[in-house]
């Protein structure tokens, strides 16, 4: 049952979350990842084209043990420094695919903004990285589970692979992000 719901989620991710250019590559990932993911709780059914997670369904994304390095960026359209650093994450995602690096953009936009701000932003900027929504109001419970160091400010970024994990409550330039990433892929 769990595997099946995982498959449904991943089909959804595949349908909505991936850009057609990278679709072939993602498809192979999907089979690989299907054991690690549970179905998202699709809150406010139909209100966003991006998958909506609560923290319980989101947590497996922080603990995958495959060969990839994940850059998980927490952001929102109303957060100016988040928007300013977005091109750097996009560039890293494009440049580092061969090194098995995947950027996941975790939007903390409020439900009322999904259609009005988040989707238009992602579309107009042609964002290629995977976008998901974390919608769980019990922030005091889940913020420390992502990192004990995190006070709750965004932008915030988690970089991890199966060997190593680092958390950053700060903004990045392209060079800074790249330098941090090198510690994971070299």
């Amino acid at each position, binding site marked *: 049952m769990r595997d099946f719901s995982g498959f449904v989620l991943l089909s959804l991710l595949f349908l909505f979350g991936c850009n057609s250019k990278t679709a072939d590559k993602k498809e192979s990932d999907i089979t690989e990842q299907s054991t690690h993911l549970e179905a998202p709780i699709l809150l406010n059914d139909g209100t966003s084209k991006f998958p909506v997670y609560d923290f319980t369904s989101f947590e497996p994304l922080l603990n995958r043990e495959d060969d990839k390095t994940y850059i998980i960026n927490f952001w929102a359209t109303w957060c100016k420094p988040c928007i300013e650093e977005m091109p750097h994450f996009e560039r890293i995602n494009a440049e580092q695919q061969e090194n098995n690096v995947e950027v996941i953009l975790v939007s903390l936009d409020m439900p009322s903004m999904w259609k009005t701000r988040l989707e238009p932003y992602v579309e107009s900027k042609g964002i290629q990285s995977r976008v998901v929504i974390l919608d769980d109001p*019990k*922030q*005091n419970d889940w913020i420390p589970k992502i990192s004990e160091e995190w006070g709750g400010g*965004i932008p915030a970024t988690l970089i991890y692979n199966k060997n190593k994990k680092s958390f950053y409550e700060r903004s990045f330039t392209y060079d800074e992000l790249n330098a941090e990433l090198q510690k994971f892929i070299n």
Partner: protein
Amino acid sequence: MKTIKNIGLLVLLVALVAFSSEKFNLDTGYGIGDVAADFSLKNVDGNTVSLADYEEAKGFLVIFTCNTCPYAVAYEDRIIALDAKYKSLGVPVIAVNPNNPAAKPGDSFEKMKERATEKGFTFPYLLDEGQKVYPQYGATKTPHVYLLEKTDEGNIVRYIGAIDDNYQDASQVDERFVENAVDAMLVGREIEVKTTRAIGCGIK
């Protein structure tokens, strides 16, 4: 040559000091049990407000908030409700906008006045002019609450964090962090949850 070397050293030293003091600011701010400094800031009604003005108060809810942050806006009605509930019990809300209006035009003093009138704020809404107060407290985002208890030793920080555990929907709140803290403080009971975390808008 020696001069150049000395200048280089000086530049390095200045950079180090500048860097470390900035770092220092980020890491400081009040913890639970610290004495909070008073301030003197301009209110939307044109008067200047200090904590010392409240002779009868038993404490204060100093809330860093603003006009422009969606989280702050989501909590406006609940901040008004906190003031309605606790001002008469001796713990008034003192709202402080920590943002620099030059960086955030929507948080200018004029816009603050407009918002206070629109929403019928029953509490002072102060501008942290020159942004001196929020770093002293260690506020990092809006909304960010500091509950202070007035004692002979000064205003002691009793709680730091979020108002409650559901920004989206006041009717779905399970834990009222601030209310629980004030209630405990007023009867001299130990506050159970003294700090909480929440997503908020960074102060600009």
